């Protein structure tokens, strides 16, 4: 959460470091190598690191800080208004409801990072969910669940490739292409549904049960703890070894204490989540354990983070988002990267579609209205999370956190008995505030005009 890619931020840090203080350390020297890398990378102690981070936050480059604060504000205010908000039952529900927003927001981020927008993510999600549900129908295609998911994701990706090509090769404005795309998908989805209802709720068919359990199933509490231990252990060891290797190779490495702190934080957050999920949340009987959907979202998050932060493709995405002309002159193939960006957005929306099908269980043409409002929520979640509308700034973790804020607002207002039109009004206001913050923080940063 702290070290941001050099490509996106480098230009904004130097002026901030100039007023970092009188302590002589590398992070405070504006003329040093610090000009090209974020000062956190040069910090040699935890104190220096914290100071460098604070300087960066003040320089308008606040990362996940605002959205974490927003989550705290949402949580505290709704807890004050309704003491059930932070109960284990509601927290697990809230998280599960937020997952679709989170995954859709991650999808949107692929387009936003490129400086484009994809208004079709909601409908691609609905389309994917309809395909999955239709394909596993025992009276119809009767595909195995995994084949249905693969087909749905492939179809969604192909649609993304089509839209991406129109945007990237013909340079049609992305919001028009995806607006037209969403209209066409609405029609196609209605045709596939054929005016009837598709359900995956029949417990006699294994394929439907597996799909149903994606949203409604959970690990056994003991298994949940073991999985957490394995996950934190593996990630912690991975981090530690990477730092050790970097140190041995003589590269700039964050202080050991920071790495240890990060691993500890991860473990604490994981333990909290598992502990909350392991509380029995059934009104009668037993429902406890971590829902399957949590690791699923984490896998999507990890995969997209690695893709964007650690691969050449990811660097190209940030480069195009930051300055397309510069990226083009540096030899980046704009049409190809842009097309792939839209493919990834559609693929991720397809994954959201699988979750959505599992969540809704029964799909009717009503999902189209839902899907259309989800587009706005996805954009709002991404922007609230800290992704810039202007391209080149953001990470998929922002989508997850922003999705949690949106899910929290929905859940909280619903608990308070607020009617849906007022919820829309609140979400619109939140989107406007997030966009305004995005614009103002860019204004504060020295790089952009």
């Amino acid at each position, binding site marked *: 959460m702290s070290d941001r890619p050099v490509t996106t931020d480098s230009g904004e840090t130097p002026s901030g470091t100039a007023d970092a203080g009188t302590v002589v350390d590398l992070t405070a020297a504006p003329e040093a190598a610090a000009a090209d890398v974020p000062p956190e990378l040069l910090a040699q102690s935890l104190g220096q690191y914290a100071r460098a981070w604070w300087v960066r936050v003040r320089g308008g480059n606040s990362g996940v800080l605002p959205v974490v604060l927003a989550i705290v504000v949402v949580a505290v205010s709704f807890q004050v208004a309704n003491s059930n908000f932070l109960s284990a039952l509601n927290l697990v529900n809230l998280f599960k409801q937020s997952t679709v927003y989170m995954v859709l927001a991650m999808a949107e981020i692929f387009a936003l990072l490129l400086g484009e*927008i994809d208004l079709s993510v909601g409908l691609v999600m609905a389309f994917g969910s309809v395909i999955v549900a239709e394909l596993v129908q025992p009276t119809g295609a009767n595909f195995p669940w995994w084949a249905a998911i693969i087909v749905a994701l492939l179809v969604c990706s192909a649609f993304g490739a089509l839209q991406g090509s*129109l945007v990237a090769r*013909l*340079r*049609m*404005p992305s*919001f*028009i*292409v995806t*607006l*037209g*795309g*969403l*209209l*066409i998908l*609405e*029609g*196609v989805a*209605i*045709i596939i549904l*054929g*005016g009837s209802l598709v359900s995956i709720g029949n417990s006699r068919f294994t394929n439907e049960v597996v799909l149903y359990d994606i949203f409604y199933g959970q690990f056994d509490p003991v298994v949940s703890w073991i999985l957490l231990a394995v996950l934190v252990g593996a990630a912690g060891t991975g981090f530690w070894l990477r730092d050790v290797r970097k140190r041995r190779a003589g590269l700039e490495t964050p202080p050991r204490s920071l790495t240890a702190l990060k691993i500890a934080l991860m473990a604490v957050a994981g333990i909290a989540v598992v502990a909350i999920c392991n509380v029995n949340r059934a009104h009668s009987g037993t429902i406890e354990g971590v829902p399957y959907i949590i690791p699923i979202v984490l896998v999507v998050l990890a995969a997209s983070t690695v893709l964007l932060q650690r691969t050449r493709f990811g660097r190209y995405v940030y480069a195009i988002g930051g300055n*397309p*002309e510069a990226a*083009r002159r540096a030899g980046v193939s*704009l049409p190809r990267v842009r097309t792939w960006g839209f493919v990834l957005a559609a693929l991720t929306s397809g994954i959201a579609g699988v979750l959505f099908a599992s969540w809704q269980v029964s799909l009717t*043409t009503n999902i189209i209205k839902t899907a*259309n*409002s989800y587009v*706005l929520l996805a*954009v709002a979640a991404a*922007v609230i999370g800290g992704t810039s*509308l*202007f391209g080149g700034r953001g990470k998929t973790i922002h989508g997850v956190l922003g999705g949690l804020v949106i899910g929290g607002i929905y859940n909280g207002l619903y608990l308070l008995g607020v*009617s849906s*039109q*007022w*919820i*829309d*009004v609140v*979400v*619109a*206001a939140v*989107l*406007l505030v997030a*966009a*305004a913050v*995005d*614009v*103002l923080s860019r*204004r504060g940063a020295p790089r952009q005009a």
Partner: protein
Amino acid sequence: MTADSGETRAETAGAGAAVDLTAAPDAAAADVSAELLAQSLGQYLRAWWLGVRSGNSGVLPVVLAMVLVAITFEIVTPEHAFLRPSNLVYIFGLSTVYIMLAMAETVVLLLGEIDLSVGAVALVGGVIAFKLVQQSGPDWPWWAAVLASLACCGVIGALQGTLTARLKIPSFVVTLAGFLLFSGLLVVVLGGANGFLSVSSSVPNQRVIYNMVQGVIVPVAGWVALAVVVGAAGVALWLREAARRRQGLVTPPASLTAIRIALVALVGVGVVLICTVNRGTPLVSVQGVPWVIPIVLVVLGAWTLLLQRTRFGRYIYAIGGNPEAASRAGVSLAGIRTWAFALCSATAGLGGILLGSFFFGQYSTNTADPGQLVLYAVAAAVIGGVSLFGGRGKAIHGFLGGLLIGGIAYGVSLLNLGTLATPLEYIVPGGVLLAAVLVDVLSRRGTGSVTRV
């Protein structure tokens, strides 16, 4: 003119051997469009054709598309009913909201911005006006209700415009949020999800609003009004040209002016003729020009005057063509943009009032889907020939595009497609929108104007 001048020059060089001003690339032609310099009808037509070939085709594509759509639907609809006078009048009523929203959207598109909230704002405007004339409620006179509704919409637009113009938040985000916000507020004003508002033709005050689309001008009055309007417009056009000629300014040939006046008269006679056919039952006759036609024409005229003949209009084209250049030339970008958004929303609000009148004076949450209205509005403007990239387009393009979209929507509904009818309501406008933008993109590419990386 501002928008097109730069593009004419390159093509005029290849105009051919005939020595006339329209063919001279180094003459004053460099700065004005070739049509302005034509001294005979033949030269004018040649210059116009060159403009069309260089991607500057004006209303030609949308008029051709309308003819094509009309012929196609006339052939494929059962009983060949599409071109019946009663259907044509109905199509105009159906298209009214698209026409108004497309004209509203045009002014924002000319700036290179977009307004995704026009649909929701239109409905809010309609609901406000309907609410204010309720006898159980405020019971305002109809004109006060309409003015208040337009003022509210104007303020909404000004707010959105301020956020876009001064805070520099991208317009599609501001108006996306506006769309969500006003879709929610709309339900609140209507009084909940089951809310319902209506105006009745039996209440004198409400009848005016009810009759905006439903009411007709008696045939004789229709003919008299047509004669007066065409006469006045013709004399004004003729006198203006005569004045220009007398002052030695470049003037289009007199024959061209005559043809234009004749065309206007011809279209007018055609419209009044169609409207005068009895479209009711033999027992209850309904004939005459619906009030909505002059209402829409007045708005069209107002927008055309504002955009083509005032400083405000020139500034809009200047900003849409190149904001940096406009700013350096002393144009207040923020002021013009805010006003444009305000006028856009007010026009949309009027569209919303007309929409309620079209639905026999009834407003509920099912009257129209604000999201679909926006899509149709943007599609209509772009199909009509307004560029998405700013600086190119006129109010008439929104008008024609709206009529085309309404025609398509009605034609599809005539086809008795059963289960395919609903999906096609989405697929057809989506496909048409993509096709229109494709043409816009490709025609820009042909002109050598700036393309995006």
